[in-house]
């Protein structure tokens, strides 16, 4: 950094550089760590405050000035909330919806993307561009028309009605096709020489080659289904069929007088996704950031 300048008076400059380096090493953390912690408090504060509320006994919830760390700490809200609302039911609905949605997406998007990437059949570019064009076309009344279709199919108030319209995603097809294209041809050829069938080549040889892209699709869809709100509200007539998001939104209106239960339920609803994120942070962050950078 100061090599050029140090040619003039090496002695003095070296000591100054050393001093500056020392100061930088000591002072930078003193400024940066408080900033990092303050930002963390802003980013996690609302959830920590919700957690604190969920761990409080009745009177302390509305105490003013607020009690930051609950005293006494009680886990009763987390236990009672399962009796107050059919929380297990909502959790099961959410798991069912997420597994069905993510599973269908993985199956349908890979089998749609694969021929578009690897087989040059007649009409390939027409089908591909038709699919991609829907990413640009305005879909103003999409929800309304999907609702009408779901009703016509007799899927109103059913889980299939919730999952089917988003069982395949153009974005996923695009992403997976790009990944399939990059696989070198030799792999496919040698498998074909060995006499493997088309579907076998797809499943055993090609699909494992695009694991990172599959992981990205998995994470995106898992988040989208687990966190979905409005479409389940539209399709389900019956509140007992709600997944966690719509259920909490609904109960937040009707159970508002007893907020610690809502707080506990909300904390429980975000725990699975936060835990999975903490385990797979690299895949989450690379997948979500990498997907937009292309």
């Amino acid at each position, binding site marked *: 950094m100061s090599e050029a300048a140090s040619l003039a008076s090496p002695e003095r400059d070296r000591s100054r550089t050393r001093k500056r380096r020392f100061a930088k090493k000591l002072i930078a953390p003193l400024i940066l760590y408080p900033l990092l912690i303050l*930002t963390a408090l802003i980013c996690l504060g609302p*959830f920590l405050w919700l957690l604190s509320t969920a761990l409080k006994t009745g009177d302390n919830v509305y105490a003013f000035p607020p009690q930051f760390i609950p005293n006494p700490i009680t886990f009763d809200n987390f236990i009672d909330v399962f009796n107050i609302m059919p929380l297990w039911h909502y959790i099961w609905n959410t798991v069912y919806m997420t597994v069905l949605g993510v599973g269908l997406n993985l199956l349908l998007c890979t089998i749609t993307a694969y021929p578009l990437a690897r087989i040059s059949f007649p009409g390939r570019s027409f089908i591909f561009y038709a699919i991609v064009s829907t990413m640009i076309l305005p879909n*103003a009344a999409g929800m309304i028309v999907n609702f009408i279709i779901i009703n016509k199919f007799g899927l109103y108030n059913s889980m299939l009605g919730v999952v089917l319209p988003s069982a395949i995603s153009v974005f996923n097809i695009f992403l997976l096709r790009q990944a399939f294209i990059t696989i070198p041809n030799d792999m496919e050829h040698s498998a074909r020489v060995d006499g493997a069938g088309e579907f076998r080549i*797809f499943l055993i040889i090609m699909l494992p080659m695009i694991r990172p892209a599959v992981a990205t699709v998995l994470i995106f869809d898992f988040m989208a289904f687990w966190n979905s*709100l409005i479409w389940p509200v539209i399709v389900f007539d019956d509140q007992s069929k709600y997944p966690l998001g719509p259920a909490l939104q609904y109960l*937040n209106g009707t159970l508002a007088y007893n907020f610690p239960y809502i707080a506990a339920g909300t904390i429980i609803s975000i725990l699975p996704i936060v835990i999975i994120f903490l385990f797979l*942070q690299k895949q989450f962050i690379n997948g979500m950031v990498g997907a937009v950078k292309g």
Partner: protein
Amino acid sequence: MAASKERKRRYRFAYMMLTPGVILLIVFTFYPVIYGLPLAFTNYSAVDTTDWVGFKNFDKAFHDPDFWISLKNSLLYVIVVPVIQILSILMAVLVNNKLRFVQFFRVAYFIPVVTSMVAAAIAWKWVFEEQGILNYFLETLGVIDEPISFMAEPKLALYGVMCVTIWKGLGYYMMIYLAGLQSIPSELQEAARIDGAGWLQVIWRITIPLLMPFVLLCSLMSVMGAIRVFDEIFVMHGPKGDPVSSTLVTSVYTYKLAFQDFNFGYSAAVGLVVSLLIMVLTILLFRYTRKGGLTYYE
């Protein structure tokens, strides 16, 4: 002969693989795009018979105060974009330092991104309570004398929701900007320093210009998100955009028209007007960014 038979077999395989996905796409993606258009010219609703009404729905929207309010609020909502971008760039600079535990902080800042908007909105509603923690802080710091009702005051309600949108987006954009900062070769900055540039000059002349493509990409995504904002308003202020329509945005209004009033035709018309506006806005944005930034970098 054998080769062509083989090829035919491969084609058949391709069509078989494509069929289920393409059928679903036709039903739930193509058909709505096409059918949504004529729907806007009908009075399709849950009860009455459906008739062609021409431009009546558009005329109605033109004279509908709630439509104008929602449009105004949706456009106003775009002010979250510069706030998110500036804050998340600062955060990216902060976590780009080589410090112990910095990875821990990066992960912590990303947590709001992966959690559901319902959970975030419920948590923030609790923070915004009149007897809540935010009012307590503001009173303790002496910023205010009386507690503010962030939720019930029509002048403030929309800005309260904006805080939630901004807060939930920060971690995501921070990660993109972090990738951007790390893609700038450090030799460039060092070379500039050797040539006698101060740190402010390095930031202004090297870091910011090289970060520009990322800023444009993030701003574009952020504008699209802001115009489509739905969940946080729906959870915090309901389908009517309470109090007194002060948080009504276009996506919530079309939802309310369709699924609360069952006025499908009118809702489709409002949706059509909005998406035409968004299209124009997108084209303008693209043209502006082409002229403004990307070309001089590429």
